[in-house]
């Protein structure tokens, strides 16, 4: 599959039709998705129709936008009027959204064609895609392994060459970690950069729509289209600092990367550590400065995150009550409203989601609220101040592995939620602090006779995506 820029240029120049690009994507999905299960739905007919409309408009001499004919996949917790929006949950198995998410509307207005909805951990809660009610997605590099999560379907779809780019959502690493495990680029923009209207809420102070793509330039091209203020999400903002690709291809000279001590955490797999160390040497050799930095509270990020995120989730997911939409349990005649709520929720939510709702309810409950929740919010401010200090000292990007290890085997971490939560060690900080971060493929780990991708993460200043993607292109260039 060609990249975003290549397809859009060829379609706009009428060297290739939008239909041919969309058909190529649908053929690639058809050929491999039986094995990978990256897609929960494929919009075959609808996508071809949309492509035909674009081709007709192009033939009439219209400019159809910067993503002309680019096939894009959308994570199934982002609302589309076409098809269903299930969040990979029994709760929303038959849910049809009456509106499109703003990010989807903006993609279509820019000429992109949505080809289907991708698999995820239920309600975006997980790091492996194993917690989907509709079966796990498999990693294209080794189908016995997870693609990461929760945007595992989107990452696998890009890695397998089914689409050049996909939307994901990132609450604690859900775009970056699967990007790392599948060997693609995964960008979590600054909190507020992209409208979350139509993204099913998980933890509202952390959620952000992000992009998975084959290259840094392709991720920038998609961000360019979906970014900006939307009256329907009052946390979204427009800043006069677009042109996200403006520094891509810059040299390493003048760049300062900061490496915190946590990058060498004992939980890091030796192969991940090797790939990371080699990449650091390469950017140094290319002319960048690499300095040791302090992020004193980085080790406490996961603990703070697993209070804040479940607390917000327990509140957000209270809306699923079996009354207005979604699954409704059959409680028979004479059942009470309370039974309707309780049975609908227990039947609709999977184990991981129920556990997080209970964890969130517990940390917010009377007697625990201050000790857990308010304390976590204080630590959260410390974490943000750590980043502020590092960037104020002249560091352009904080460099760590994206996650502690390459893709693990399906089932390997089942039944041990804490082990799975520690996957988020390097990624939660950017969500807690609201800053942008990107995972870039850095090399391959040799594990049990397989070659598995390893990503590095760059964290940048709030609303500093242009500089961040410029730095990411330096990493991309030396690998």
């Amino acid at each position, binding site marked *: 599959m060609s990249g975003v820029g290549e397809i859009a240029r060829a379609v706009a120049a009428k060297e290739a039709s939008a239909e041919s690009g969309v058909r190529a994507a649908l053929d690639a999905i058809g050929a491999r998705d039986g094995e990978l299960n990256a897609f929960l739905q494929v919009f075959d007919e609808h996508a071809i129709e949309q492509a035909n409309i674009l081709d007709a408009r192009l033939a009439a001499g219209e400019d159809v936008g910067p993503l002309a004919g680019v096939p894009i996949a959308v994570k199934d917790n982002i609302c589309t009027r076409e098809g269903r929006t299930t969040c990979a949950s029994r709760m929303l198995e038959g849910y049809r959204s009456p509106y499109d998410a703003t990010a989807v509307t903006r993609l279509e207005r820019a000429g992109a064609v949505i080809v289907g909805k991708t698999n995820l951990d239920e309600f975006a809660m997980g790091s492996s895609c194993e917690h989907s009610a509709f079966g796990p997605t498999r990693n294209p590099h080794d189908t016995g392994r997870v693609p990461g999560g929760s945007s595992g379907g989107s990452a696998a779809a890009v890695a397998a060459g089914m689409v050049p780019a996909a939307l994901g959502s990132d609450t604690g690493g859900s775009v970056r970690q699967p990007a790392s495990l599948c060997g693609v680029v995964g960008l979590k923009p600054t909190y507020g950069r992209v409208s979350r209207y139509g993204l099913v809420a998980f933890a509202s102070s952390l959620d952000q729509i992000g992009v998975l793509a084959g290259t840094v330039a392709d991720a920038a091209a998609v961000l360019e289209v979906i970014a900006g203020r939307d009256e329907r999400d009052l946390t979204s903002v427009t800043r006069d600092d677009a042109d996200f690709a403006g520094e891509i291809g810059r040299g390493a000279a003048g760049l300062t990367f900061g490496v915190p001590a946590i990058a060498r955490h004992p939980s890091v797999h030796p192969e991940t550590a090797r790939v990371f160390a080699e990449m650091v040497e390469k950017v140094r050799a290319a002319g960048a400065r690499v300095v040791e930095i302090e992020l004193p509270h980085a080790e406490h990020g996961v603990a703070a995150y697993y209070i804040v995120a479940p607390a917000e989730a327990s509140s957000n997911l209270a809306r699923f009550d079996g009354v207005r939409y979604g699954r409704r349990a059959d409680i028979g005649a004479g059942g009470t409203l309370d039974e309707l709520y309780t049975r609908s929720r227990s039947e609709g939510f999977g184990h991981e989601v129920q556990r997080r709702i209970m964890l969130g309810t517990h940390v917010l409950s009377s007697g625990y609220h201050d000790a857990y929740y308010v304390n976590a919010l204080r630590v959260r*401010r410390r974490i943000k101040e750590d980043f502020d200090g590092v960037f104020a000292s002249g560091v352009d990007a904080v460099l760590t592995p994206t996650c502690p290890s390459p893709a693990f085997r399906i089932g390997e971490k089942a039944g041990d939620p804490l082990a799975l939560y520690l996957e988020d060690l390097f990624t939660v900080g950017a969500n807690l602090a609201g800053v942008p971060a990107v995972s870039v493929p850095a090399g391959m780990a040799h594990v049990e006779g397989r070659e598995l991708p390893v990503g590095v993460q760059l964290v940048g200043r709030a609303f500093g995506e242009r500089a961040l993607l410029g730095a990411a292109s330096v990493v991309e260039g030396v690998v």
Partner: protein
Amino acid sequence: MADELTSADVRKVARLARLAVSEADAERYRVELAAVLGYIERLREVDVSGVEPMAHVAGETNRLRADEPGPTLANEVLMGMAPASEGAFVKVPKVLGDGGGA
């Protein structure tokens, strides 16, 4: 606090969250939640005296938009999403008298 988590605590939390949890599930959740809560205990090591809690990173506060009518979703579209309805109403079990408790 994590050490003290009992299956009665789990049932209480499940009840607050409107989740039905069987005896066997309650024990499984107790073990899993205790492990996570045990890990979370490490936050107590951090000196946060004098630190203001930060619930949200955005510096902006409430914004008002002009109070102008705009497009809305049709009533029948929204009603069509309800799993049970009768006429113009979403249908729920009896909430008054002995049908309540929610």
